[in-house]
């Protein structure tokens, strides 16, 4: 599935900058937002987000 950041942002109800910040790893989304993103991509949350070494 190809989305622009703007399209994805509108689908999950956040600003485009927030999507950008998540992609860059500057912001860790809430459970609600993670689940919404997973629903858009039709994938389990774990496939999109993983714990990193410092978590």
């Amino acid at each position, binding site marked *: 599935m190809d989305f622009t950041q703007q399209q994805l942002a509108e689908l999950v109800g956040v600003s485009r*900058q927030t999507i*950008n910040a998540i992609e860059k790893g500057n912001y860790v989304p809430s459970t609600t937002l993670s689940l919404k993103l997973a629903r858009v991509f039709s994938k389990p949350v774990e496939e999109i987000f993983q714990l990193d070494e410092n978590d």
Partner: protein
Amino acid sequence: MVKNYLFSPVFKKIGYGILVVALVFFVLCLSFDQLAFGLQYPMISLTPPMDEEWTIFKFYPRLTQGGWFEIVMTLMCVGCVFVAFSKEKEEDECIAQIRMQSLVWALMVNMVLVLFTTLFIYGGSYLTCMAVYPFSTFLFFIIKYNISLYQFRKNNEE
């Protein structure tokens, strides 16, 4: 959905308007003798006159005179709350986090100032400082929040 206590975005502009009016009144009060305006109106005071002893657990309701000070303080309170606690047009959880972090920062900075004032400032100046601190908290918060928000938007623009 998590509940928040924020006002709609339009209140931010209203808040800035109120603060400008408060500032004008404040400068006028400083520039001229308050009495020259002749503004006095009845208010209810819960404390006794200055020369009587007062314990915090007793109330002595009596009539007193209000003036410009009460008006300026009321406007400042309402204006600060509207400016600080209005939603952004594009409100989301990331902005909520920036707001919360800025508020923590502002409270900490202000408390350091309160501590400094308590240890090193005495007499009337101490009371003056204490009257300013509720508003300096808001000032620190509004500045920090807007800088953080600007940086967040700029860093995630591309």
